[in-house]
């Protein structure tokens, strides 16, 4: 059982022309991840691109592990050209995932764009009523509609910046709405998305004195806390996103 193993491509599905679901079959026993943890995938057999690319665990079963990503640069481009039976080197699970909400607490999940990839397994794991606020630029960036609908405990509020799907708003407006209406302070907020969104959500939960967990992204090399490449400044100094994160609590940030 090692955190470094080979896997075989089962399928590469295009959710949209830019969004890819990569389904892999581990060729060795691997550790069970917690939602919010991530893996480093080696994208090339050659030395270019050199570094591995980090992706949140999207789903994990005994015989299948999958990642959901957006084609962005060279690495994700190569990954999106993988074909069934190709092999790939996988390194993980790494980092700290999302802690589940405490017994009495309700979860409020805020996903910006690709943040949904990291939060989706959390939504599946929280087996009680949960609200998801899911925002993106436009209709075609809203993924997994069916899968979200089929999560029985989850109520989803979709918003797009241009109003082409759901309400025309950023995630912040429905979030503020909800928080204002719920005087119950036992809410735990989970957020993953662009830095701007993270900062705004953080300010909001501070304002309402709520508990929150935030997943951050930073460029990575080692994934193990050794190179000090992926740090973020926190209340307690520089913290490694790959080791102390990627999920940080509101107090830490």
């Amino acid at each position, binding site marked *: 059982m090692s955190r470094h193993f080979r896997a075989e491509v089962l399928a590469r599905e295009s959710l949209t022309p830019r969004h890819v679901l990569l389904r892999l079959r581990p060729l060795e026993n691997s550790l069970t991840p917690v939602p919010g943890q991530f893996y480093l995938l080696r994208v090339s057999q050659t*030395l270019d691109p*050199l570094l591995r690319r980090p992706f949140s665990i999207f789903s994990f079963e005994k015989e299948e592990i999958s990642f959901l990503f957006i084609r962005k640069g060279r690495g994700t481009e190569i990954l999106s050209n993988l074909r069934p039976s190709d092999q790939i080197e996988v390194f993980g699970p790494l980092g700290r995932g999302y802690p589940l909400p405490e017994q009495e607490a309700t979860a409020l999940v805020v996903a910006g764009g690709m943040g949904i990839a990291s939060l989706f397994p959390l939504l599946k794991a929280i087996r009680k009523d949960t609200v998801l606020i899911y925002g993106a630029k436009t209709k075609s960036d809203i993924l997994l509609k069916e899968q979200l609908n089929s999560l029985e405990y989850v109520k989803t509020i979709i918003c797009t910046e241009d109003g082409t799907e759901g309400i025309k708003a950023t995630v912040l407006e429905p979030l503020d709405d909800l928080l204002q209406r719920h005087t119950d302070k036992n809410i735990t907020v989970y957020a993953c998305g662009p830095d701007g969104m993270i900062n705004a959500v953080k300010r909001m939960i501070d304002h309402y004195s709520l508990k929150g967990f935030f997943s951050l992204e*930073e*460029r990575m090399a080692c994934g193990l*806390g*050794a190179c*000090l490449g992926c740090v973020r400044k926190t209340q307690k100094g520089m913290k490694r996103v790959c080791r102390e994160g990627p999920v940080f609590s509101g107090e830490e940030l």
Partner: protein
Amino acid sequence: MNLSVRISSMKMKNPVMTASGTFGYGEEYSEFVDLNSLGAVVVKGISLKPREGNPPPRIWETPCGMLNSIGLQNVGLEEFLKFKLPFLRQFDTNVVVNILGETLEEYVQLCEALDKVVEAIELNLSCPNVKKGGILFSEDPEIFKKVIEESRKKIKHSVMIVKLSPMSDVKKFAKIAEQEGVDALSLINTIPAMAIDIHTRRPRLSNLVGGLSGPAIRPVGVKMVWDVFSTVGIPVIGMGGIITGEDAIEYILAGATAIAVGTANFVYPDATIRILNGIEKYMRLYNIEDINSLVGGLIWEG
């Protein structure tokens, strides 16, 4: 088959070391690498006081290489001795501490504190000298000589290694180091470089400039190791872009008595072991009894 080598009085069971800053304090990689099987673990550069380093972003990928500008972040001498060193002492391997200073005095104090405590001290002189307006210790032959001279006085038991910057005339600096009684030289450190995000027009690294490492620089490292090996008599530790056992052999043939694995750790968490296996495979293939017989074995009638 003998794989053991000596860097001055430091005996190593094999020539595979880790490159400072790429292997943390050993601990981080201990799940993937049996530290007992390494010739030596070289830890992240240590300064007298803990340091925060540069703000992110600190790394950027380049063709067959990467830039880093960690900016000397480290736990500081005290915490290293209290928490990091005891962990490493559980293993049967040599511990080498890479040291960083901003003044001559800091280097001297670090040497004094670490002498005898660890098997070897590696002076990283590619740091800006705050007293001399930020000029690098590795840039000016006079300053370079002075730091070594003063540090040498404090290192009485441990092996003293000086790490050379590729941005200098390595032969000249190697000679100075040898004359000052340094026990071994290590090279190369990263090559200063930068990258720009053409969409935002901003630097890829918050610090603008970073150090280039990885396979891209290997041919530069091999040449410099050969240059230094041909110039001085003290042992050389070669590094720069070693990914496979074959790359390691290339450095050894160029004159490296030991080699250090840096960026490769990020490509494969067990890179050191893969490289060690690759070295052994090569030796078996060519019936090499003793790795030392390969050192500087380049055939060249120039």
